[in-house]
């Protein structure tokens, strides 16, 4: 039975020094569904996403209030090691960023860092991850070629394969299609729909049609506050809040 509060954001506020970026966010993100975070630039959606992986820890002067729990465990528990957290949470960024290595080595990079070098295991991980990322058939005969020889869409799918190689529980995607052409974008969107069978996915997107196509739930953030959160079709057909309607309808200045 998938958990309704797989990611629980509890009255979470976040500050960059004196500037408050998030104000008392409360959200329950269900397991093995796609949740889209939408809102105008600077609304806090990427900040919230990055906090689900504690990626903001390295920035000087940041602090938070409240908590985020993954599958019931606090991310901010002093006993939590960030390295082990990253194994539970995969991340895909706006600009595809494969390493200057072969396709194969890109996928197994995190396993090698963890000291796992058994060829049989690595081969299995490469095939499984590339198949899940819908890339296996296109690259199976050139696994040891440079990743840079792939098209942009293929490079982004390789980054997704790399992010899921460790079998994380959660996949965070920060505008994963922003640098791709329409066909490559549709392939990634189709992939997101497939990947939700295995992973809980949170995606930040500026593309409203992408949110409607890909996500099961949508959260609208504005000026650091969660304005509306609900099933995607309800949010786009009959939003409850005027700010949401203004934003998704293009009546926002």
């Amino acid at each position, binding site marked *: 039975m998938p958990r309704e509060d797989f990611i629980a954001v509890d009255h979470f506020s976040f500050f960059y020094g004196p500037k408050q970026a998030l104000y008392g966010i409360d959200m329950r993100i269900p397991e093995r569904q796609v949740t889209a975070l939408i809102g105008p630039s600077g609304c806090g959606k990427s900040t919230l996403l990055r906090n689900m992986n504690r990626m903001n820890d390295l920035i000087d002067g940041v602090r938070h209030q409240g908590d985020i729990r993954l599958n019931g465990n606090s991310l901010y528990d002093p006993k939590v090691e960030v390295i082990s957290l990253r194994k539970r949470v995969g991340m895909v960024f706006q600009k595809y960023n494969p390493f200057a290595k072969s396709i194969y080595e890109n996928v197994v990079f995190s396993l090698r860092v963890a000291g796992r070098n058994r060829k049989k295991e690595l081969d299995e991980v490469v095939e499984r991850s590339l198949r899940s990322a819908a890339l296996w058939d296109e690259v199976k005969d050139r696994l040891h070629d440079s990743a840079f020889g792939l098209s942009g869409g293929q490079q982004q799918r390789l980054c997704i394969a790399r992010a899921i190689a460790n079998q994380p529980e959660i996949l965070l995607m920060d505008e994963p299609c922003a640098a791709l052409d329409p066909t490559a974008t549709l392939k990634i969107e189709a992939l997101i729909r497939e990947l939700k069978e295995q992973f809980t996915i949170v995606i930040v997107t500026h593309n409203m049609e992408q949110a409607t196509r890909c996500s099961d739930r949508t959260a609208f953030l504005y000026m650091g506050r969660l304005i509306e959160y609900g099933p995607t079709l309800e949010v*786009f057909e009959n939003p409850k809040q005027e700010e949401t309607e203004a934003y998704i309808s293009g009546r926002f*200045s």
Partner: protein
Amino acid sequence: MPPNHPHIIRDFDESIRKLSESVISMGNQSRLNLQRAVEALIQRDIDRCKAVIADDSEIDEAERSVDAMGMDILLRFHPVARDLRLVISSMKAVASLERISDHAVNIAKRAKKMLSREEIREVRLIEPIYLMADELLRDALASFADRDSTTGRNLAVRDKELDRAHKRVVATLSQLLEEGGANSESYLHLILIVRSLERVGDLAVNVGEDAVFLDAAEDIRYAQRRYARESDDPDTDPAP
């Protein structure tokens, strides 16, 4: 940031405004055609009968035009929320309005045939039925134009009054028809004219339901009809 704030793309607001106005304009034209058809019947005016029949092609064209505008908006702007509901409900409403104009044409054609026969005083039975159908249509159009779901929601119950009146008039005319005589054909025409007016009431209810969807994002179609049916006597014909 209220949702009636201007759209970032000015063309979009203009397209939405034109679409909305075209639906209401087409509705008023259908309503006028119905009025002229009934007037032609009562006043035995053959020229007006011909005009109603000829003007129907304008209504057909208006329906095609609204559908094309709706497709254009969907394709170019990918509307959501109330803008999306406006496009969908407009395209549905004009189908009902086009059917209403078809009923006006049916009435005009029957009126034309009746003109070649002796005038019968039972034609006057049509007027109260027409007035009820016209009020429903007027309020359906107002509910759509004003995004007034309360008025739109009430139409189904009001339509049952029209159904009852329709049944009474049909019973009277059927009795006369059974008695036979030289006016039998005219009585048959009147029965079918009353039937057309009863259908106009049903179609006005449909437009009201579209207005409820537009205003409140609720699909009340079958719940409304079921409620109206259950609140009526058991002999009532099922809603279409």
